[in-house]
């Protein structure tokens, strides 16, 4: 087994984790406030915005990959950044895939219970900021679920990152694109090994997140 886990494979695992954690974190920072905002506001065209978000939740990764590719290609509007076939490009594509999913989950959860939470906050004399903090805390389970869903999506993604990352050896090759490549080459054992590692990482992160969540609940006693 250890023969299979060489320096190159370790590099691939580390890059996969970097990309997945970074894109999930950025998508949470964008998606959670967006979902809460969407529930809070009422304006003409809100239903269209919700419809667009729901469509984006199911958007095919290759289409997102293509859009990011067109934006970052040398002659594209952001070509001067030189981000095509880099980790940045892969993170951008992942963020575009994940943010609507996280926003959608938070929006749906918020629709269900935010009015009760906001009313309660008013009756307790909470400020606007305290109300937002309370909302995020009370929707903690749903936000946690959104984060795990987003993480799972990022971890398993192939199409978009293949287009914008290029699956370049030692540079943008991640676990899913490597598995795809190994299968094409007929190196099934190595592909299965990487697949198993991918599943183990997903399991480990779920366990760590679960422990942190429990600990956060226990240690929040700073009154």
């Amino acid at each position, binding site marked *: 087994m250890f023969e299979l886990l060489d320096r190159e494979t370790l590099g691939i695992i580390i890059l996969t984790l970097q990309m997945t954690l970074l894109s999930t974190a950025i998508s949470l920072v964008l998606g959670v406030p967006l979902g809460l905002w969407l529930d809070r506001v009422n304006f003409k065209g809100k239903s269209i915005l919700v419809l667009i978000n729901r469509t984006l939740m199911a958007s095919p990764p290759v289409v997102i990959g293509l859009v990011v590719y067109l934006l970052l290609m040398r002659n594209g509007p952001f070509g001067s950044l030189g981000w095509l076939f880099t980790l940045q490009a892969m993170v951008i594509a992942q963020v575009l895939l994940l943010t609507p999913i996280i926003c959608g989950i938070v929006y749906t959860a918020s629709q269900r219970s935010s009015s009760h939470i906001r*009313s309660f906050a*008013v009756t*307790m*004399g*909470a400020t606007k900021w*305290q109300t937002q903090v309370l909302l995020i805390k009370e929707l903690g389970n749903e936000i946690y679920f959104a984060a795990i869903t987003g993480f799972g999506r990022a971890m398993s993604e192939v199409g978009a990152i293949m287009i914008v990352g290029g699956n370049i050896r030692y540079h943008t090759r991640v676990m899913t694109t490597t598995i795809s490549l190994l299968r094409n080459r007929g190196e099934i054992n190595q592909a299965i090994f990487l697949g198993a590692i991918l599943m183990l990482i997903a399991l480990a992160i779920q366990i760590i997140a679960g422990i942190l969540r429990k600990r956060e*609940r226990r240690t929040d006693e700073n*009154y």
Partner: protein
Amino acid sequence: MKITDLKKKLDKFSLDIKSLEIPEGKIYGIIGPNGCGKTTAMKLMAGVMKPDSGKIDYCGLTPRDITMVLRKPYLLHDTVERNLIYPLKLRKIKPDITLIDHYLEITGLTDYRNKYALTLSGGEQQKLALARALIFSPKLILIDEAFSNMDIESVAFFEDYILKTQTEDPLTKTPSEPKTFIIISHQLSNIKRMCEYTFFMHNGEIITSGETDKLLSSPDNDKLKQYLNYM
């Protein structure tokens, strides 16, 4: 509190309170049939709901001086103790252990202080919500059928407790600035026992009001008479 031309249109009815003055430091009752606008009126007073038009003059009270206990109280996804101290935490007041113990004791939840609040029974949840509203000594306390799930003994206890602590500090037993309570209840016994003055609402309007004993013993309005006949 002074209310002028307060209007709120909802799907089923419209609330319309022309003029209402509620002097501070007393316990008031609001009665009326289901759907007459009692809860809406209370939510408007608490600031939970915004009126379509009209004005509420709080006469110097800020949102931090007002609280409301809802019929179905919202409890935090947290322990009983953390629910209890939440309003203190919001005000950056370090809770005194004697104060926490006192409120846990009066609610009968001392043994449940570290238990998840949402596992409590309906009546216990109402007691916790009531204690949470009282712990930070607000000046105006609005109570919307908060006794509805409690047993008779608990209701009697809280009636006594509110009557006593309305003008007295619960810990030191020394006189304190009188608090104002507004109570909605379908149990006329609650209203008779606690409220000095009562408003009767019908179809979104306050159609009569008066000193509780007088209003309920010799009603001056047909709608009120009809309502009392069913009670």
